[in-house]
């Protein structure tokens, strides 16, 4: 692109707020479609699949936070208030499109069919956890479901998504990569590197920013002086859209279109979903120290699950009896799976030294041997590996 063509002869600066991006919205809170709004193609079966995943995620979050409060779980992190975004984006993809998420996207996994057992095995770090009990709760991953295992350092997945998608393009796959991140993470250098490379190299990657207003205690007003994250993509030379992140129809439609651009034109796209983190940042956080209840209540009234339910009711695809039954079936599922996961043994002691390299080098084998004989001397001091449970 030639940026030198047009000249002016007066020193007119382009203002930082020259680009004010509007928000795409389809559904009003009462579930009516806003007149004239472009609506996604969504049949009853898929709409209900989305809704069930959203409700499942909400219930899972409630139960697991309670479990954390009871001391059963060391840590938990909810996605309450953002379910329309975290489920809706997955619903717009092919199941083989790679997802590289940040950590608050359990809805996408639920939509893709990660079972309640699989959630629990990771949360409790037992012998069936794919991550072998190495990472904190909520660091899910699934190769079968094309969901890259979460890494805690923020924004590191964003340039990786650009690289992954470039590989998909070279391989001729009709697929894209979607990377999800918070508006806080979008301040990291990795974000900027990722967008620039994606635009220059014409990579089929979708950058989905969940703008939920806060990065732990830092409000977005202290995160950036710009009009959010959406205009930055334009600066890097790519298409960008801002959507109402609590409006599942807007999420699905925008993501369907973004996917088309990525897969058919090799155009990277940025989607900024405006929402609100209704819960605390994590189970270690207390939001009353940095924001007030009135603000939270304002957003509680915009609950994305309620909005979708209202729409489903209007479509006559849903009724209160089905609603009641859905909640009543999920709750015991979660509790029973939790019990089963908690009763399973820890990963074997070998899990300490495997996967550091393809095969443990001699030094690591020796370190494990030394550790084994130490544990044999003091089995009662190491309950996770005592009694052979973790000795495999």
């Amino acid at each position, binding site marked *: 692109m030639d940026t030198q063509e047009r000249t002016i002869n007066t020193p007119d600066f382009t203002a930082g707020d020259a680009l004010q991006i509007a928000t795409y919205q389809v559904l009003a809170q009462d579930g009516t479609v806003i007149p004239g709004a472009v609506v996604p193609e969504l049949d009853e079966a898929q709409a209900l699949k989305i809704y069930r995943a959203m409700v499942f995620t909400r219930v899972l979050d409630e139960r697991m936070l309670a479990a954390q409060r009871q001391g059963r779980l060391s840590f938990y992190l909810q996605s309450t208030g953002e379910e329309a975004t975290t489920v809706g984006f997955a619903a717009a993809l092919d199941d083989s499109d790679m997802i590289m998420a940040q950590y608050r996207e359990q809805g996408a996994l639920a939509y893709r069919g990660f079972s309640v057992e699989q959630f629990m095995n990771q949360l409790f770090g037992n012998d069936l956890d794919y991550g072998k009990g*190495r990472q*904190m709760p909520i660091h899910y991953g699934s190769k079968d479901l094309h969901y890259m295992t979460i890494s805690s350092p923020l924004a590191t997945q964003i340039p990786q998504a650009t690289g992954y998608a470039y590989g998909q393009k070279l391989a001729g796959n009709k697929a894209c990569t979607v990377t999800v991140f918070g508006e806080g993470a979008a301040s990291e250098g990795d974000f900027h590197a990722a967008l620039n490379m994606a635009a220059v190299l014409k990579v089929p990657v979708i950058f989905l920013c969940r703008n939920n207003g806060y990065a732990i205690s830092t409000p977005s007003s202290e995160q950036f002086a710009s009009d959010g994250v959406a205009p930055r993509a334009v600066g890097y030379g790519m298409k960008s859209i801002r959507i109402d992140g609590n409006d599942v129809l807007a999420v699905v439609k925008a993501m369907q279109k973004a996917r088309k651009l990525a897969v058919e034109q090799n155009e990277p796209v940025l989607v900024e979903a405006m929402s609100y983190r209704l819960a605390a940042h994590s189970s270690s*956080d207390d939001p009353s*120290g940095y924001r007030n209840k009135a603000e939270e209540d304002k957003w509680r009234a915009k609950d994305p699950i309620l909005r979708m339910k209202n729409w489903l009711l209007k479509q006559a695809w849903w009724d209160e009896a089905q609603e009641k039954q859905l909640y009543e079936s999920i709750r015991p599922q979660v509790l029973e799976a939790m019990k089963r996961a908690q009763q399973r043994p820890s990963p074997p002691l070998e899990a300490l030294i495997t996967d550091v390299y393809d095969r443990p080098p001699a030094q690591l084998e020796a370190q494990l041997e030394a550790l084994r004989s*130490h544990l044999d001397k003091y089995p009662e001091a190491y309950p996770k590996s005592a009694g052979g449970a973790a000795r495999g």
Partner: protein
Amino acid sequence: MANMNLLQAINNALDIAMASNDKVICFGEDVGVFGGVFRATSHLQEKYGRDRCFNTPLVEQGIIGFANGLAAQGSVPVAEIQFADYIFPAFDQIVNEAAKFRYRSGNLFNVGGLTIRTPYGGGIAGGLYHSQSPEAYFAHTPGLKIVVPRNPHQAKGLLLASIRDPNPVLFFEPKRIYRASVGEVPEEDYELPLGQAEILQEGEDISLLAWGAQMETVEKAAAMAQKEGISCEVIDLRTIVPWDIETVTRSVMKTGRLIVSHEAPLTGGFAGEIAATIQERCFLYLESPIARVTGLDTPFPLVLEKEYMPDHLKIFEAIKQSVNF
């Protein structure tokens, strides 16, 4: 004297540093109104205003690059990196910039006012990315000082000394004992010397050397050894760079044995540096090989964290082995 936990002592040191020098500026992710995720900067914004205590955008590379510029200008930045595990995005600004500012400019410019505070270490069910002890990466880079306090009294005195030291300092805070370590702390302004180890307990048979949260573990092992009739000399290194070679050498010449313990992995860990130097200095005095009790050469695990940690039992076994060599 006041009773404080380690966090309160750090908060108190920052308060005193800001009160006594209006060039001292504290910033980082969530350090403003909220006072930091661990609350180390509580009330500082209230007291000193948004210009001197504030939230930064979420970008460690930016935080330290900004701090370098601020320090070069003559201010005294105290930057917080929320977890030591997240210091790596700022690695270039620390090892290539902060560490070499003075050297490369022939002392025309320096960032001596810079202090980087960051919580480090395991034992908190934090898994891979909330448990690391990255001091050795930085110890390899000339130009940086590295300080690790073990309790509230040390934390206050060492942090005030770090902030006022004319060199860039990395101040690693043992987060496992942030609240658990409580003790008497003088209310007034005081400093503890950088580069000087402290002997916590005199002993005859073996020297035990560690720093930060690991001191508690070493003291526990020393108490177990005591019951078996083994007398341990317990030393807190306090400063990793520059480290107090003299004190450690004197101790090992007396006891003839040394164990160094840290949570970071064995290979390339700072214990290796200490062992090499001490065997050079004390070769003829040594009665057994210098032992290292450390984390494994793996990333930090979650569920098997207890197995991974260099705990008091592992140190106790190493003491017995060394004494019975």
